[in-house]
């Protein structure tokens, strides 16, 4: 934010960010390769920590070298790069076909072949044309994404060190392939950086495919039948998106052989007539990657992977790539029928996925459905795509990344201590693991309560939807969906804070690096709520302003009131000091039955019984099967509709 005097058409290598962008793309890949060769655990720890620190600092450094307004471009005059990428894509295709044959997954092979065919056709048609020099670029939105990937992503990598060693102690049947694991997670970060810094669509596509590959391999890490099946499910759905993306590339070369339109920055300014068809195709790819209904199955299935993988997929990589690209194309989608339908897919996903979360007792599945719901909301904002909604969508991306990674890592920590990730087994966590419970509590509060982040964004979204065309549908969806989220989060919260008299403390033996990561993420969850006016005014508003020419913000009064509420919330726990002495503690009311201090009571026939309390899950109302079927039918229909409309435009 400091160099206002920057000239936008600087010569490559003169600018600091020109060095930082390729560094951020290449450095994690180098670390990844190092981790693939190093076999000793001691060295691996060293490399992962050092790598994470360097990536974190480099992404923070970007904060100081990114121009204050508008994008900055860096031509990469390295001609054989695109050819190399094509070769790499073909190699990946061959690798996937090999795996497909090995595991007898013929649908995957078919999809890989279809995509490779499209790519080869694209390569043969586009080579004779005159290419523009591909650009790397950075603007405030890329910067926000880079910060999320660089800071949250690398924190998760550090956490994974401790998690994976415990994981292999608990699961001796799973082959220890930690070298591949850490190779993949760092490679994933590298691909994500590439994706958010590329302006040239074929490059975006290349990195897009890399994220598909990494997630596929990570989901299948444990090698069990379920893991392999779910990995292929994820692969198939993402390949479907990849085919649409490749279709967008082909469409663009066919209408513009010169290739200027292959740049995002040119494309989004070229008007609905040319940009709408590729935007819809790419938005479809985004929908598959962001696991919206009907493609939500893969993200729920991805829960079989070790928890850090889930944290990575849900917060800083993969699904965020999907919403990133849709938000990028929001200016094209806004005001069109296609954009509205895509927004409806997002809106219904939000409503139904939130409702399904009520019926789930597996903590990771609740988190998965909540992610799907929030991604739906982001897509709903981006699809309608007015400037206020894009502002709200970016806020959602930031807040969601922080709180969700915290929650996943808390669940992972709890899982290793109590041997379960079921919410019912988390009764009295505040007694058994007080510190983790408090962190989890803050994480959950961050997801739905005022004055924390996600609520601010939902509020902003309501205010923005009212003014948008057909916005009332989305306001209604938010009013109902928002209150549904209150139910499933609070009953989880209630479970962990019940002071159960029979619980024992089991918090010892958690590695130090896990504590550091959890503490940092908790601090960030609170801090971002205090700092969000600054984040908004320095990062989000300049981006929205440069794209739309106007921008949204919350009013000063409301920001003040929310800051006051947050302070009030922070000082309230100290009220416990007032009540330290002088209150008599008694056991709960047991309807007058003879009962003991550890909550055993005299039941009928003189049998002593233990009190057990379980949450409501309402599976007959909010059952997964029923609602998922409804969501699939609804969203599939909407996608078919948008497909037909787009085909009409394209022909």
């Amino acid at each position, binding site marked *: 934010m400091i160099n206002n005097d920057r000239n936008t058409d600087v010569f490559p290598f003169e600018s600091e960010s020109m060095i930082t962008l390729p560094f951020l793309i290449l450095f994690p890949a180098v670390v990844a390769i190092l981790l693939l060769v190093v076999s000793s655990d001691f060295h691996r720890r060293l490399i992962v920590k050092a790598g994470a620190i360097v990536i974190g600092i480099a992404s923070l450094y970007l904060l100081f070298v990114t121009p204050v307004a508008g994008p900055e471009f860096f031509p990469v005059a390295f001609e054989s790069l695109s050819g190399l990428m094509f070769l790499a894509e073909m190699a990946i295709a061959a690798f996937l076909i090999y795996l497909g044959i090995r595991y007898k997954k013929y649908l995957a092979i078919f999809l890989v072949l279809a995509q490779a065919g499209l790519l080869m056709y694209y390569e043969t048609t586009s080579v004779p044309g005159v290419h523009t020099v591909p650009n790397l670029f950075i603007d405030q939105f890329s910067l926000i994404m880079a910060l999320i990937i660089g800071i949250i992503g690398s924190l998760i990598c550090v956490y994974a060190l401790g998690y994976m060693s415990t994981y292999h102690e608990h699961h001796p049947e799973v082959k220890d392939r930690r070298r591949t694991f850490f190779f993949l997670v760092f490679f994933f970060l590298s691909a994500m950086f590439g994706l958010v810094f590329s302006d040239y669509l074929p490059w975006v596509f290349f990195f897009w495919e890399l994220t598909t590959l990494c997630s596929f391999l990570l989901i299948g890490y444990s090698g069990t039948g379920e893991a392999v099946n779910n990995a292929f499910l994820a692969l198939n759905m993402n390949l479907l998106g990849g085919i649409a993306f490749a279709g967008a590339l082909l469409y663009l070369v066919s209408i513009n052989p010169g290739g200027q339109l292959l740049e995002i920055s040119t494309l989004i300014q070229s008007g609905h007539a040319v940009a709408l068809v590729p935007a819809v195709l790419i938005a479809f790819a985004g929908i598959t990657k962001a696991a919206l209904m009907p493609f939500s199955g893969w993200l729920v299935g991805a829960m079989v992977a070790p928890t850090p993988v889930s944290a990575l997929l849900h917060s800083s990589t993969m699904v965020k790539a999907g919403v990133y690209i849709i938000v990028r194309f929001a200016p094209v989608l806004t005001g069109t029928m296609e954009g509205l339908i895509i927004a409806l897919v997002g809106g219904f996903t939000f409503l139904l996925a939130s409702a399904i979360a009520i019926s789930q007792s597996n903590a990771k599945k609740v988190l998965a459905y909540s992610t799907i719901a929030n991604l739906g909301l982001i897509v709903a904002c981006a699809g309608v795509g007015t400037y206020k909604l894009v502002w709200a969508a970016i806020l959602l991306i930031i807040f969601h990344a922080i709180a969700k990674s915290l929650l996943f890592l808390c669940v992972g920590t709890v899982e290793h201590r109590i041997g379960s990730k079921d919410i019912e087994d988390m009764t009295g966590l505040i007694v058994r693991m007080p510190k983790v419970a408090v962190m989890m509590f803050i994480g959950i509060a961050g997801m739905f309560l005022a004055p924390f982040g996600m609520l601010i964004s939902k509020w902003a979204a309501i205010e923005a939807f009212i003014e948008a065309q057909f916005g009332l549908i989305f306001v209604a969806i938010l009013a109902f969906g928002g209150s549904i989220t209150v139910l499933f989060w609070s009953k989880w919260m209630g479970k962990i804070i019940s002071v159960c008299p029979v619980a024992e403390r089991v918090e010892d033996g958690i590695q130090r690096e896990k504590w550091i990561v959890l503490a940092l993420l908790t601090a960030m969850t609170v801090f971002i709520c205090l700092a969000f006016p600054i984040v908004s005014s320095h990062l989000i508003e300049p981006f929205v302003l440069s794209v739309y020419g106007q921008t949204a913000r919350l009013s000063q009064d409301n920001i003040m*009131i929310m800051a006051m509420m947050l302070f009030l919330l922070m000082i309230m726990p100290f009220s416990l000091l007032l009540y330290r002495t002088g209150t008599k503690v008694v056991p709960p009311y047991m309807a007058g039955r003879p009962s003991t201090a550890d909550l055993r009571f005299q039941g009928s026939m003189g049998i002593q019984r233990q009190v057990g309390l379980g949450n409501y899950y309402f599976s007959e109302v909010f059952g997964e099967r029923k609602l998922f079927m409804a969501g699939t039918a609804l969203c599939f229909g909407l996608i078919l509709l948008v497909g037909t409309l787009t085909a009409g435009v394209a022909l």
Partner: protein
Amino acid sequence: MISVLNALLFIILAPCIGGLVAGIDRKLTARMQGRVGPPILQPFYDVGKLFRKEQIVVTPSQHFYILSYLVFIVVSGALFFAGGDLLLVIFAFTLAHIFLVLGAYSSYSPYSFIGAERELIQIIAYEPMIILAAVGMYLVTRSFYVGEIMGSSVPLILYLPGVFLGFLMVLTIKLRKSPFDLSTSHHAHQEIVKGVTTEFSGPMLGRVEIAHWYENVFLLGFIYLFFAWNPVIAILAIVIVYLIEILVDNTFSRATWQFTLKSSWIIAGMMGLVNLGVLYYLSAVVPV
């Protein structure tokens, strides 16, 4: 835009008004049931007595949740009367109730546990309608600020009759009136003892009671907004609405949670959304 004076007035006067309303409520209820009933000031005597009792708890953390409940109810009410953003008021209001629910959960008591779950069901039953009411007021006045909605000369009730009916429905839930007094009730007809408040006693229960007074005054203020263009009609409307609530309270038996959730969502959808849809359509067709 924010009037600190009004907020202070609310903080001082609301418990007095809320307590009086509760006293009148009890008197009328007694007369409807053919009893003489307690004196009008009885609620104040009751709360005074609660504060003189010994404090016993199941877990000390209950103190934190209940104090937070009271504080955030006061904050949301004060923000409302100060003229703040209606949506923020609603969110602060939800936050306060989550604290009440958490206080009930924290005791690990069978009765308050079920009460807490039911209170959550009530929250999701009424919240959509309250948000839709705020949205309706925005559609008419183009502002979410209570101050500007109050200052508007438009008779909101004429534009928002459906929203108002939907709001009356959830008001029954919020005032803890039968048939929707699922989580805790003023009546003796409950199967879960005192539900969400089972494990609160002495001064702590006194705080819950005072919070409820603040809450009721805030809700009556919300009714006022629909009639804000004419204070006399507004006061009259509040009185009539409250009388109807008492009558309903005494004539219906308690509903199940399924019925509560379904009926309040259907009413919110039928009355609220249809009303808003018409307004939305009209504002698109006929520019104001």
